[in-house]
């Protein structure tokens, strides 16, 4: 009887700790498998990505629809090429949509906001968003402002 009780308690202990691992994985770190399976890739070129990082969010009207997969320097176009990973449930973005790099709040992290266009043709796997707006660099803005002042 005593050893049965111990075995049951040990079983409960192991179950609770597995639940804790699950909680840390799902709730705290937002970990999920196979996330990239139902996503498609878009590309866009920016003059200035300043502060945008891999895994930054991509949003339409502020709603997250994907994330930044890679940022690299493109030698042909001589600017930054950003790879976007978009949720495949968002399938009707017009091909003349605009991608702009914005900041969450005054000191928040950079993210890509997509403003929808009016074209009938939609963006699909491997397409490029041509119309882009670069990140606003606060230092440059202050510099311009100071030059105008004097």
């Amino acid at each position, binding site marked *: 009887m005593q050893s049965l009780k111990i075995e049951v308690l040990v079983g409960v202990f192991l179950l609770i700790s597995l639940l804790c691992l699950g909680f*840390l994985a799902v709730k*705290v*770190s937002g970990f999920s498998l196979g996330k990239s399976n139902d996503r498609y890739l878009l590309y866009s070129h920016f003059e200035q990505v300043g502060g945008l990082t891999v895994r930054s969010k991509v949003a339409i009207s502020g709603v997250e629809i994907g994330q930044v997969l890679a940022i690299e320097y493109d030698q042909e176009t001589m600017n930054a090429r950003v790879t976007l990973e978009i949720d495949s449930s968002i399938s009707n973005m017009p091909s003349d949509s605009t991608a702009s790099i914005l900041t969450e709040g005054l000191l928040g992290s950079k993210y890509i906001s997509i403003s929808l266009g009016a074209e009938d043709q939609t963006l699909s796997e491997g397409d490029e968003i041509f119309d882009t707006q670069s990140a606003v660099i606060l230092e440059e803005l202050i510099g311009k402002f100071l030059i105008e002042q004097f």
Partner: protein
Amino acid sequence: MFVHALKQIGRFSFEILSSMGRALRLLSSALIRRPDHRNIPLIIGQVYQLGVLSILIIVCSGFAIGAVLALQGYTQLVRVGSESALGLGVALVLVMEIGPVVSALLFAGRAGSAVTAEIGLMKATEQLASMEMIGVDPIARIIAPRFWGGFIVLPLLALMFSVVGVWAGSLVAVDWLGVYSGSFWSVMEQGVDFFDHVMKGIIKSIVFGFVVIWISLYQGYDSLPTSEGLSTATTNTVVFSSVWILVLDFFLTLMMFEL
């Protein structure tokens, strides 16, 4: 006089080396043996002794530390208006540092010292020697199950510690101080990565479990069979374990910093 000092240094280093040798021999003889299914009930018994009975102290400490982290973090973050990052701060600190380290320290005090005292007393009352007399290997019967029990249990306790801490942090931040719960959890989810942060914490607690239970077993097995020897061994367990945990924490963090 000079020769005498040299002799002391020599004796001291010889003692350190030979005790390291004995500790390694104990570890290898506990690890290198055929797996025996009859030992599984013994390991389960140790998981109960070392793990289940430690849950209360882990949960209480985790709750208090999570709540304090949230309170302290809030007073600093609210001055720059970024209290939405509180969840991220509390979760990262708990999962990567405080969870593994503090639960290992508590484990050394709660379970490690108990293992040392138990084995030390077995040795002092010659139970280990009489086991050997009747043909039962004390390493297989006493040392190995305790080793595996402690090794399994500490990572699980550290996970519990982190989860209870995060929960207490959310209780203080969201329900008491009025941080918006949406930003508390979503900033945490975005900032904490399973492989970058949670796994590193788990790796740390696996290493700590190995070191703590090894020190505890060795100190008990190697203690002098007197009441003074037993008290020295128990003290050594807690002191050596704590120091090793903190030193190893630094080196593990250094190693995993750029990983």
